[in-house]
């Protein structure tokens, strides 16, 4: 099932890569924060597609629900609540060119580590055919030999963080 030398999977990979990296570039370069938030959502959506290609459908669904649904909305709210700042032409720091050089050099370094066999040939071209299912993932979260303790700890942490966020963001002067 090859159309014009490109398999459907490679085509989908290219599409989602463009969405992910294009959205990220939109976040990095856009001066308007509301548009930046929309580009962030585009990037997160592309990432959900890449998760589907990596046969992790649960993570893709959670990505859409938590990242796009919750964090995207949260960031948009924060941008709106601090509106007087977003009307300004958002400035970059004076060291933006230095940041670009650092990020570019770091990217080249990472790319070298990924492409060149510096750390041994750890990158097979073929993925194994056997894949763990979402059911196995769910079992691993409640299995006493696997992730039940981290799972409980992380749920406590999330509860604490949300209560903390409510307390920090609440109006102080209304209580007496």
């Amino acid at each position, binding site marked *: 099932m090859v159309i014009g030398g490109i398999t459907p999977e490679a085509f989908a990979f290219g599409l989602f890569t463009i969405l992910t990296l294009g959205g*990220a570039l939109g976040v990095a370069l856009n001066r308007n924060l509301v548009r930046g938030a929309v580009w962030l959502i585009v990037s997160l959506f592309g990432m959900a597609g890449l998760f589907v290609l990596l046969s992790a459908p649960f993570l893709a669904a959670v990505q859409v629900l938590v990242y796009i649904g919750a964090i995207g909305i949260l960031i948009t709210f924060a941008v709106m609540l601090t509106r007087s700042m977003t009307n300004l032409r958002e400035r970059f720091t004076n060291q933006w060119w230095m940041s670009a050089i650092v990020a570019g050099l770091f990217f080249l370094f990472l790319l070298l580590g990924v492409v060149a066999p510096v750390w041994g040939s750890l990158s097979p071209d073929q993925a194994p055919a056997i894949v763990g299912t979402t059911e196995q993932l769910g079992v691993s979260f409640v299995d006493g030999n696997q992730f039940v303790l981290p799972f409980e700890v992380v749920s406590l942490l999330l509860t604490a963080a*949300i209560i903390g966020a409510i307390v920090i963001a609440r109006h102080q002067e209304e209580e007496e």
Partner: protein
Amino acid sequence: MVPLWMYLAVGAALFCIGAYTVLSRKNAIAILMGIELMLNAVNLNLVGFWRYQAPENMSGQAFAAFVLVIAAAEAAVGLAIIIAVYRSRRSVVVEDVDLLRW
């Protein structure tokens, strides 16, 4: 099948774009968006390695799910702090928040 190094290269590019956003912006919300991008890049690496190295063992996906939860907690607390700072200082530019500086 798309080889593993392509996913890793996408992750590397995404991480560096996020790092550039964190380093070059003055607005605290934009910095938080850059951090989200970097966390996503790490997640892509985790899931990529899981798929190509040990797909029968669920550790990779479980780690990615934990990273996602931490990212949600970080976003909630971070944005709450930004809103609280904006209330008291009328600014979300990180250079203006210098109360602890001496």
